[in-house]
């Protein structure tokens, strides 16, 4: 076995020295406040020594390892016991709380913070992959200065800070610009004060998909500049106008939970969801009905529905709407049907359904990213208004969120650089060279006289900088944020810096001190941490918590922040609401429009350097490590393009060449390309993977100051073909009944759905008795040797397909928990991906007879009671444990692969290469990525079969805890990694032999079924059929 640091956890002491003996504040109990951690040099020294294995004679045959104790023990960390620190996720700006598991001084797993009301303990795939940002091998490891020959050379921090101060001295304030990402806390204030200190107001907050259209629409319709907050759980009818609210729009984890709660209601009615967009994305796939209007006409459909509601008086005692009559009069359903391609019957039916109960119409996401987006969003606001949803299911924060955010400001900067009026440019938390339309920003950047980047990675913008002052990772940072009114969230360092990086807050304070004068007077704080704490004295007053500040601070750190019910303000119709106008979207000659959408896993591209995310199949196409263009089969046929053919997608702004993915979920006149790839820098995992679809977009801002993501294109096959690196076996179920569904109508009629479509295998007459005997033998053996107080569980899962949205957070959580290696694009093509849990995605219909329907099914080892893998293992590596698992003993496995051949679920994965060996070319964890390995789980080596074990390390860990404290395990105490992170709460783990456990109760529901039940495998995983709220024909 290769000896990695990850496995080294067993050795106990591979920690690091600590100077002051105090770590960051853990979740429990409350320790004294933290002061600074150990310095980096010592950490690295110890780190290096830990991984060194020296040949001495201590062991019988193998080389010895070293045990390196903490120089000074960290107060709240014991070797072998995980400490959890509360902080906040910064992978997007939703503000999900984190509990980071730290072992021996290093972060090994990220989980959600149950106390944070935004995510309530859940996380998405991007949040899970935050660890790969922290330990990314392509981080900027030390300050770098560009040399005359264009290369970078390291520079000490003092010199770097002095260089910045020198450049700022004597420069007119208005020639200094500062770009940041979306910041809502103390750092935002610090940057503004810093700029003020040097006499500048040139602050650009840049966040791709910055809700420009939505904010403009809210101002026009309700007179305030704000982004609405949607109450999904309260709505029984959801109508989304292109908003991908389960993927990237708004606060996806929070919205997923609300959505799933509304859909999977055990009592009362199940919510119905209709998605209106030319493309069916991951969010649209969860819809009960997909309506595909002409590109850019969603707003017209919304107003036609509103028209019917007002004219037909569908809402009794509705809000006053007479002022809107003039506007709505222009949107007769008949006319709109012609312009949008959505039939009058559908519009009328949607109107009736919409007002039948608590409902919610959503604008945002891709529906709010085209030239006509401000109109679309305004129309949806009006629809919500006339239906009486405003201030009920649609609310607005008391304070403006997302102030000044937008592409227009960045576009202004591009112009200023081109005009030669930018002397010093700071870029923090953004990568505009890659992530802005066209090439305008990148082309202009060279004209800025001195460019300072605070990039954490070697991204495209950093490569163009003169000086890189690497920021610390969010997991190494002090910071705070207020993503919405009343939610004061804290970030604390969960471990000491991996590299010689510095928090930008400290850098700016240092530069201000060097500059002296106004800047130094305005920013007197000794350190960023002090600055933050000073600000939190104010927070304490705002939230009205009495007592000593230190107590308030420590309690806030422990909880991850201070959570107050977000204050909302009631809004009414503004006069300008009646004056909204349309901006027609551009169309191409041959009528093809490309929708350039944010990838659910990479967003605008910031996640592309995380191998977990690269290897994560796209929820829609199931393609990994690539960019593709989605084309309707008819369009593909017309153009002579088949799946995998390379296609040149050409717009007025640029062109990219990507393989074709033939997909029923786009209109015939629409193609779709995901963003996020095509990096020319950004490290080994991102560079030269896929294509950058931003190049197709025009650099001119839309009328509302955003980016137009709908662009006319032409397609041309290049004659090159590639086999897509897809993890999809077949897109269709072919009668196998794998992902089953039932309609509400069938349920009401007492039917439970599709019966098994193939004959069950014939059974020997006495099979039940035989199986019982075998199980009893297991139990007897178990009880003989391990008297767990007469407790013999059978571990099982219940998975509710009505809740599953296909988001794939569970997949990344599993990679993180179980040390699963990524295998890369070539091996994925050969079907050798290692994902112990995968999301199967099947299509139904899509032809003229049946509308397209998608179903998701998380597939992991089913822990069969009568497992086909067990009897074929010649070495007893695959065997049945007394607690009902299919055990897999890695050190026993000799790699015959018989088990995988005999597994009907394809859930066993073989290590074809030595991806755990640092000397091997397939090594999956190049330094320091290996630091994220979970010390509780063996890192498998070449020739070994591996698979899901229901996180047996977590089961054993909790059993140890229960035994040590002397009380039995409680239901729900053990959580598998997939269950722990599932934003929709679709996965429930527990003991099937305990009739009162949550999993038993769910598994007994009438919608429960086992996949491939006819094979008599007796799975421990019960799926609950997806309940579809469709209109019965």
């Amino acid at each position, binding site marked *: *076995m290769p*000896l*990695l640091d990850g*496995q*080294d956890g*067993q*050795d*106990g*002491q591979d920690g690091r*020295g600590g*100077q002051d003996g105090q770590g960051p504040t853990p979740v429990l109990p409350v320790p004294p406040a933290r002061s600074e951690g150990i310095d980096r040099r010592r950490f690295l020294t*110890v780190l290096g*020594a830990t991984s060194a294995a*020296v040949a*001495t*004679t*201590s*062991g*019988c045959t*193998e080389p*010895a*390892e*070293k*045990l*390196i*104790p*903490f*120089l*000074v*023990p960290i107060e709240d960390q*014991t*070797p*072998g*016991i995980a400490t959890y620190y509360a902080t906040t996720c910064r992978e997007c700006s939703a503000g999900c709380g984190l509990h980071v598991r730290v072992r021996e001084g290093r972060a090994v797993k990220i989980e959600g913070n149950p106390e944070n009301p935004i995510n309530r303990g859940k996380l998405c795939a991007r949040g899970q992959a935050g660890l790969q940002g922290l330990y990314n091998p392509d981080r900027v490891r030390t300050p770098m200065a560009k040399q005359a020959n264009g290369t970078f050379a390291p520079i000490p921090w003092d010199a770097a800070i002095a260089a910045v101060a020198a450049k700022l001295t004597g420069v007119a304030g208005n020639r200094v610009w500062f770009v940041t990402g979306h910041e809502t806390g103390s750092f935002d204030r610090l940057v503004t004060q810093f700029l003020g200190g040097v006499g500048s107001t040139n602050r650009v907050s840049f966040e791709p998909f910055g809700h420009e259209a939505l904010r403009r629409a809210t101002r026009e319709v309700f007179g305030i500049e704000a982004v609405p907050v949607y109450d999904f759980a309260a709505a029984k009818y959801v109508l989304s106008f292109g908003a991908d609210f389960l993927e990237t729009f708004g606060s996806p984890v929070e919205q997923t939970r609300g959505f799933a709660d509304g859909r999977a209601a055990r009592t009362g009615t199940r919510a119905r969801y209709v998605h209106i967009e030319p493309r069916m994305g991951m969010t649209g796939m969860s819809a009960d009905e997909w309506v595909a209007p002409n590109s850019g006409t969603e707003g017209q459909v919304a107003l036609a529905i509103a028209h019917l509601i007002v004219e037909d008086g569908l809402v009794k005692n509705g809000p006053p709407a007479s002022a809107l009559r003039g506007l709505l009069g222009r949107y007769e359903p008949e006319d709109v049907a012609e312009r949008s391609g959505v039939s009058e019957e559908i519009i009328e039916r949607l109107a009736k359904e919409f007002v039948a109960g608590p409902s919610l119409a959503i604008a945002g996401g891709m529906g709010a990213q085209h030239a006509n987006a401000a109109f679309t969003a305004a129309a949806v606001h009006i629809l919500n208004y006339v239906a009486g949803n405003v201030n009920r299911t649609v609310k607005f924060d008391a304070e403006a969120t997302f102030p000044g955010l937008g592409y227009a400001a960045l576009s202004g900067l591009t112009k200023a650089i081109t005009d030669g009026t930018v002397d010093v440019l700071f870029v923090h938390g953004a990568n505009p060279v890659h992530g802005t339309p066209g090439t305008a920003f990148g082309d202009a950047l060279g004209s800025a006289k001195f460019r300072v980047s605070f990039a954490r990675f070697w991204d495209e913008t950093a490569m163009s900088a003169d000086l890189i002052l690497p920021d610390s990772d969010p997991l190494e940072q002090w910071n705070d944020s207020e993503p919405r009114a009343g939610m004061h969230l804290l970030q604390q360092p969960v471990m000491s810096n991996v590299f010689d990086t510095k928090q930008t807050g400290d850098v700016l304070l240092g530069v201000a001190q060097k500059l002296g004068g106004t800047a130094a007077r305005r920013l007197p704080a000794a350190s960023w941490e002090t600055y933050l704490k000073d600000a939190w004295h104010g927070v304490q007053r705002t939230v009205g918590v009495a007592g000593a500040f230190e107590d308030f601070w420590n309690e806030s750190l422990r909880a991850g922040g201070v959570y107050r019910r977000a204050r909302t303000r009631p809004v009414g119709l503004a006069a300008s609401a009646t004056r909204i106008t349309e901006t027609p979207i551009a169309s191409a000659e041959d009528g093809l429009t490309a929708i350039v959408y944010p990838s659910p896993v990479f967003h605008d591209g910031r996640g592309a350097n995380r191998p977990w995310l690269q290897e994560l199949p796209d929820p829609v196409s199931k393609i990994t490590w690539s960019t593709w263009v989605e084309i309707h089969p008819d369009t593909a046929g017309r153009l002579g393009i088949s799946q995998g053919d390379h296609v040149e997608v050409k717009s007025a702004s640029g062109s990219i060449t990507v393989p074709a993915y033939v997909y029923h979920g786009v209109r015939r006149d629409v193609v779709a390309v995901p963003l996020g790839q095509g990096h020319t820098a950004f490290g080994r995992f991102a560079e030269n993977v896929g294509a950058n679809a931003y190049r197709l977009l025009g650099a001119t801002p839309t009328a509302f100051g955003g980016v137009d993501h709908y662009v006319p294109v032409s397609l041309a096959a290049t004659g090159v073909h590639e086999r897509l690196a897809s993890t999809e076996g077949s897109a269709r179920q072919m009668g196998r009944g794998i992902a089953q569904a039932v309609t509400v109508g069938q349920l009401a009629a007492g039917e439970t759905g599709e019966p098994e479509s193939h004959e069950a295998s014939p059974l020997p007459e006495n099979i039940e008795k035989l199986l019982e005997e075998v199980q009893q033998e297991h139990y007897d*053996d*178990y009880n*003989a*040797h*391990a*008297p767990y107080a007469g407790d013999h569980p059978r571990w099982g899962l219940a998975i509710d397909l009505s809740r599953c949205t296909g988001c794939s957070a569970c997949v990344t959580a599993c990679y993180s928990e179980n040390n699963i290696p990524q295998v890369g694009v070539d091996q994925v093509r050969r079907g050798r991906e290692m994902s112990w849990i995968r999301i199967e995605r099947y299509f139904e219909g899509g032809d003229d007879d049946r509308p397209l329907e998608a179903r998701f099914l998380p597939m992991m080892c089913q822990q069969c009671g009568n497992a086909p893998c067990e009897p074929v293992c010649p070495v007893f590596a695959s*065997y049945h*444990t007394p*607690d009902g*698992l299919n*055990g897999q*003993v*890695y*050190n*026993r496995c000799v790699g015959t692969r018989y088990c995988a051949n005999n597994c009907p679920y394809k859930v066993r994965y073989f290590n074809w290469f030595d991806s755990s060996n640092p000397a091997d070319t397939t090594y999956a964890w190049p330094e320091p990525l290996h630091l994220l390995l979970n010390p*509780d*789980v*063996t*890192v498998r080596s070449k020739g070994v079969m591996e698979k899901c*074990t229901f996180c*047996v*390390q977590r089961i*054993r860990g909790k059993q*140890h805890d229960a*035994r*040590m404290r002397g009380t039995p395990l409680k239901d729900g105490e053990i959580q598998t990694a997939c269950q722990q992170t599932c934003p929709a709460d679709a996965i429930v783990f527990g003991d099937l032999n305990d009739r009162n456990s949550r999993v038993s109760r769910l598994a007994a529901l009438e919608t429960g079924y086992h996949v491939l039940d006819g094979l008599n495998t007796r799975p421990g995983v019960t799926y609950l059929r997806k309940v579809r709220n469709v209109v019965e024909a």
Partner: protein
Amino acid sequence: MPNLRGPLALAITTLGTGSLLVLSACLNSNAQEAVPTRTADNFVAPATVDTAGLPGPVQPVFYRHDVHAGQYKMDCRYCHFAAETSMHAGIPSIRPTCMGCHTVIGTDNPEVERLREAASNDQPVEWVKVHRLPPFVHFPHMRHVKGAGITCQTCHGPVQEMARVYQYSSLKMGWCLDCHKKNKQTTDCTACHY
């Protein structure tokens, strides 16, 4: 080597080299029955002259378990602080555990001088691992020490009489299972292998 007994002392005299010595120590796995868990009240750790002949790996600091645990009867858990709570027993930190006493005791000892030097240079001591457990085995110290009340010596041997610690038991699976079977404890593979 007057303090080394039985087959080991024999091994030392007959074989003489470090690596083979440890091999012999590994084979000496059935001696656990007779392991003394306490030494006589008047036990005095012998002066060692020929350290090259001692079993076990050479450590960066010649730490004497026989002096600390034997002669001065310090509890194992004073230094191995996590044995009752964690999977791992824990290795003490120089500050405060070692230097807590050695700022006043044994300050003229050259090995203590090495410790003090390491402490003042902020360098942790890089101990060579003695007990080899393969990485695919997960051994919970707390379940054995606190849960089952098994003495440290049962597996680690008479550490309180070892001038330099060596691996006393084989730590091979059969050795684990012998004890588990005898005491009617679990023999399920996934109890330890995952």
